[in-house]
């Protein structure tokens, strides 16, 4: 009875996985024969004109993503958790979940057109307050494009992240809070000294997911900017996609994919080795 599971995995997961490595050693363009070229796809990528700017952008987006995921949803979750009324806590959690129902593509297109567009919310708001000189094509101006991408989804409070933090906060035993209060811990200090360390495993999970998601993610750039203007918002994933589906260079694209896989694998191993979860910390303290 394990057959369906194993068959599906073998065909749709294992074969592409192995094929990615194999293809990366070939010069393979759709419609023509494949030639074995050894590592030359890899060495070509090391000299690719997009490489430096792609990695810079990736770093910028990753750092921004980590900062965002570690702050806004946690602060909102803590605020909701601090409410006395059970009903209010439930209601806020439901209301903050609403943005999840909008398809991701729709969210991107809404920000692209309605917020960042020439006659969009941001520019019209600037004109309204008499700062028409600041208006611009937020996604086409090379100086603003990366920040514009980062700010999509502002104030970053909608969605499941709040629930994950909330679950972590709810898991802190009351005795810990009581003991902290007896010791005179209050307000921000209590939040930083008690709550933050005890939701570390949630912070860690969301950070890993953010890092992996950013390295893999190029859907946003594909829909919003196509890596432009110029290569200003190019990321490695998008360059892989373009090589495969625009330039038909499957071998080269697979080599970029393999490099991204190795990057993710390396970071995952580092994470497992050097960052411990709050459970482990608690176990050690006990």
């Amino acid at each position, binding site marked *: 009875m*394990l057959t369906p599971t194993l068959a599906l995995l073998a065909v749709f*997961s294992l*074969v592409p996985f192995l094929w*990615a490595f194999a293809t990366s050693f070939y010069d393979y363009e759709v419609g023509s024969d494949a030639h074995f070229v050894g590592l030359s796809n890899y060495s070509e990528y090391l000299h690719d004109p997009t490489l430096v700017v792609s990695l810079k952008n990736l770093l910028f987006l990753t750092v921004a993503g980590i900062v965002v995921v570690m702050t806004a949803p946690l602060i909102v979750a803590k605020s909701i958790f601090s409410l006395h009324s059970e009903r209010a806590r439930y209601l806020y959690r439901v209301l903050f979940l*609403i943005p999840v129902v909008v398809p991701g593509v729709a969210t991107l297109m809404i920000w692209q057109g309605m917020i960042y567009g020439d006659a969009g919310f941001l520019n019209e708001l600037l004109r309204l307050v008499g700062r028409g000189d600041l208006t611009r094509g937020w996604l086409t101006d090379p100086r603003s494009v990366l920040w514009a991408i980062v700010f999509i989804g502002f104030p970053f409070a909608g969605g499941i992240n709040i629930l994950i933090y909330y*679950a972590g906060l709810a898991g802190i035993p009351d005795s810990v809070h009581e003991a902290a209060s007896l010791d005179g811990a209050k307000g921000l200090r209590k939040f930083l000294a008690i709550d933050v360390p005890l939701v570390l495993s949630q912070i860690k999970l969301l950070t890993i997911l953010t890092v992996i998601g950013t390295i893999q993610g190029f859907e946003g750039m594909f829909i919003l900017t196509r890596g432009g203007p110029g290569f200003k918002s190019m990321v490695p994933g998008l360059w892989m996609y373009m090589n495969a589906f625009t330039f038909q260079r499957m071998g080269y694209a697979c080599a970029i*994919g*393999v490099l991204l896989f190795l990057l993710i694998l390396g970071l995952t191993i580092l994470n497992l080795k050097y960052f411990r979860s709050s459970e482990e910390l608690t176990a050690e303290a006990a």
Partner: protein
Amino acid sequence: MKRARRRRQVGLHLFLLAVLSLTLLPLLFVINNSLRTNSELNHSFFGVPKAASEGVQITADRVEGKARFDVSESSDKGAKIDHVGYGAAMRTIGRRLADGYSYAWEILRPYTLNTILVCLATVLGVVAFGSISAYIFSKCRFPGRGVLFIAILSFMMIPGVLTLVPSFMLVKRLGLLNSHWVLILPYVAGGQVFAIFLFKGFFDGLPGELFESARMDGAGHFRLYWNLVLPLSRPVIAVVAIVNVLGTWNNFLWPFITNSDAKYHVISSGLYLMGQSTVSANYATMFAAYVLSSIPLLVLFLYATKPFMAGVTSGAFKA
């Protein structure tokens, strides 16, 4: 002391309401703009739908005793102004407000049906294969069980960015392009892994006496699975289902590259193509499409918020 605490609660509410309104602001603008014509939007980004304010005006006039009202049929084509009774005037207003929606729905309907079909098939496959395999790993002993389980879980480590291109080459060679199967089969293959992980954790936690007493009564594995384990697993099924619906619903790239035939597009790829086509020149239609594409998941969440929150809160999500 008590007053200070009250003040703090009020402060928290104000803060949360401010963040919440910022979060929902774009959606409110989308709804508002979906009811406005191009000329209204070009004239000013901020403002209420003209048809709606005309409707309010006509109603106010009627309260004051007027019987005939001036109402324009289509504000984009301009000229035609009717002098009609209240009912006819309001019907015209309603038609004008729904203009974007009726056109958008015409385009989105096949995409929506495709998406729902693919979602249902994916969830069914993931829940069925995931729970059966998890049951076997949890309750049956056979050589190599542990190794095989780890091997299956290790598929979670393979990032989609690595397999996107070879997966495309594979389904192309299999002749699956432009079909529902090109979405369903890979989604089930990938989705079942996390499901096996969740289900097995849950099955392992079920008390062993439950199984022993059922087995004493002569129940085989199939009966145990179908009559005992599945009914107990409803919370896990809910989480697995919602995670997979969300994933399927939001996946854009895979349907976009594997289905060049418009017949098989799903909502995500369909919306993108709408935005690329001439339809996008009609703002109200696009905004209406965003609203319409959000309704199915909104309905799902109205039903599933409780089990979903319980599932996320149960602590499956941490590292």
